[in-house]
């Protein structure tokens, strides 16, 4: 298969990189992502994988320590390239232990937005400003700032900060107060859209459809192939 051959031939031709991944000492090709190095080393890839490089699904979370560094940091394995002497390990996915339950459809009164945030995420006001969530985020989101803004009821500002969240949940793992920042971020984002987005063009078209003023004609000339072809 072309794809595998490309991977293998690259390994044969390129400079060699040695690293330790989940306890396996592996040799990788320079320029490979951690995820590709794992697969090319013949190790089974059956979890912690999703979009394979686009960096949008947050599935391939790893702890990475570079040569000479003392602390390990978080990253996405599909985005992080291998380096000599690197140590990496997957961080398995786990769902939040205590889901902060709410029914979005029941949140209809925007006067009580602050109460609603506080009722669903009561821990948010207990943020101890440790910045653990900020350090955990592989996308560089100001997670702690979002938590503080949400706790102060500034829903739009909080939601804007979470624009690039990829749902990796590393901030959930990092938070000692069990705030579940990733889910708080989605809560304020979803609430904003559900409560305040009311496009006039969409509403107009929906009304036309309800009134039967948007019929579909199967026999219209444009719905059938032109004669010649």
């Amino acid at each position: 298969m072309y794809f595998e051959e490309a991977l293998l031939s690259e390994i044969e031709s390129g400079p060699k990189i040695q690293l330790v991944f989940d306890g396996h000492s592996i040799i990788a090709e320079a320029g490979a992502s951690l995820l590709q190095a794992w697969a090319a080393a013949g190790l089974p890839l059956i979890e912690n994988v999703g979009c394979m490089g686009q960096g949008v699904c947050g599935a391939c979370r790893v702890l990475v320590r570079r040569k000479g560094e003392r602390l390990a940091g978080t990253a996405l394995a599909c985005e992080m390239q291998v380096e000599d002497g690197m140590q990496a390990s997957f961080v398995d996915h786990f769902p939040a232990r205590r889901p902060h339950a709410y029914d979005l459809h029941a949140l209809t009164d925007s006067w009580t937005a602050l109460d609603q945030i506080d009722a669903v995420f009561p821990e948010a006001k207990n943020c101890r400003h440790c910045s653990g969530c900020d350090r955990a985020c592989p996308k560089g989101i100001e997670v702690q700032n979002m938590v503080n803004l949400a706790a102060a009821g500034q829903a739009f500002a909080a939601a804007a900060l979470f624009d690039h969240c990829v749902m990796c949940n590393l901030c959930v793992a990092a938070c000692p107060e069990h705030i579940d920042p990733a889910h708080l971020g989605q809560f304020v984002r979803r609430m904003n859209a559900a409560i305040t987005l009311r496009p006039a063009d969409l509403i107009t078209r929906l009304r036309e459809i309800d009134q039967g003023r948007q019929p579909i004609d199967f026999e219209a000339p444009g719905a059938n192939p032109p004669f010649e072809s």
Partner: protein
Amino acid sequence: MSGGIPHAEALAAWRARTPAQPQALALPVPELLKRFHPDRQPGSMVPLRVGASAGLPCRAELATLLQSDSLVEDVDIAAAPMLDADVLVIGGGGAGCVAALTAARAGARVILATKLRLGDSNTVMAEGGIQAAVGAEDSLQRHFEDTLRAGHFTANKELVAALVSDGPAVIRWLIQEGMSFDLAEGSERIGGNLLRKKPGGATAARLLSYRDFTGLEMMRALREAVLLQPGITLLDRHPSLELLTDDRGRCAGAALHDLSLGRTVLARAGATVLATGGAGRLHIAGFPTSNHYGATADGLVLAYRLGAALREVDSFQYHPTGIAWPPHMEGQLVSEAARASGAALVNGLGERFVDELETRDVVASAILREMAEGRGVARGNSLGVFLDTPGLEREKPGILGKSLVTLTHLAHRAGFDAAAEPFLICPTLHYQNGGVAIDPDGWSGVPGLLCAGEVTGGLHGRNRMMGNALLELVAFGRRAGRSAAANARAERPRNIGLTHLADWRRALIAQGLPLTSKAPVIFPPYGNFDMATQRGRAA
């Protein structure tokens, strides 16, 4: 593939000739497609020999999987624990989430089983947007006709009518689930207008979006909704090995495999919704793919073995601009927005060779022609042509930083500056146009079995329009979820098992097909895990 012009030499040629002059295609389109489109190459298609669609032309790699034997025997399910639900949804992408939500809200007890993790799917990777005819100058009829024309008039009209009619209501539903959409410049959140762009092949601006990560925004909202919805039991890391049948031939659920414990679990259900997505990770015709890791055609294999009919399984979409270099990003998509904004395609001689705004199949074939005839650009082991982003930046200063943000980030991650150096690109396997034939309620024709999303066929004909995939997965996820919930308690399955396999194996043997080939494959070969022999291992 033959060799190309070395990268340094090609860069010099590109610099010397920039800006390259527009060049019409030297070959008539039918001949170009015949000689260079991957689906038209000799040996690429074979007629199916067994099953409900015997005789239908099918991509050879896919046909091998469709006409293979099951991963499970009676002995594998004999002592397996049994779960029970009204509705079983297989697949945790967009269509699966929407179907599960809809069924649960209609009162059904739902199991959602997914191979990887909830949300890991092609949905989350979608960039461009979702079509819905909301513009004053636009209409459902125009959306209907545009979709049929783009699919070369091979789509099922009833399905397309259902799709476009649902469009505006789908957008309202998504907003109610907490998904945001871009607004037109200067528009207010209440009483404003949605930002609309014109997708390729459309007669009106109809593409709604959230920045250039519409799919991520959609999947975030859907994922939270599923996690919070009472009545849905979520099973991550539970791929389906085989559908179950009762003694009347009705689909009765599925044999799932619990990857973390390495054992089989049965999920019994009154109705089963297959929402397993596409097939990019089969690397059809040897192409890299823009698809996510789980896109291995599992649903097509399972549905076909149970007797569902397929259509247009000989039609795939190759997106012209996938990344060719660096190898660790191979196959990833460079958005069509680059060409739509005016970026040229340039071969190793510094020449343009096709109108860049032609349809995807024509542009992809033209690129493959340059590569096959020695005018491609070779860099390391990669071969492709240039996408002239520096030329675009020179013509429209600031465009890379302002409106092509994702593209600029992509170049940054690849280690170069898109304003100084062109991308090396080659076509990438993007979408499965065909799939399981369904009716407008999502039924597959097999009692108890529904399908939704990319696994289905008939909506896109032989070519899908940009923005219709996201619309499809919500529109038909809702339809399938609704039908499943309404039907699930009508007839409870009884005497369930693998009764369909005896006939299937007889048919394979009668055709001289080997029983040694097992499917679905679940993971691509470079996943280093053979479900047929290694699945007993806990991991």
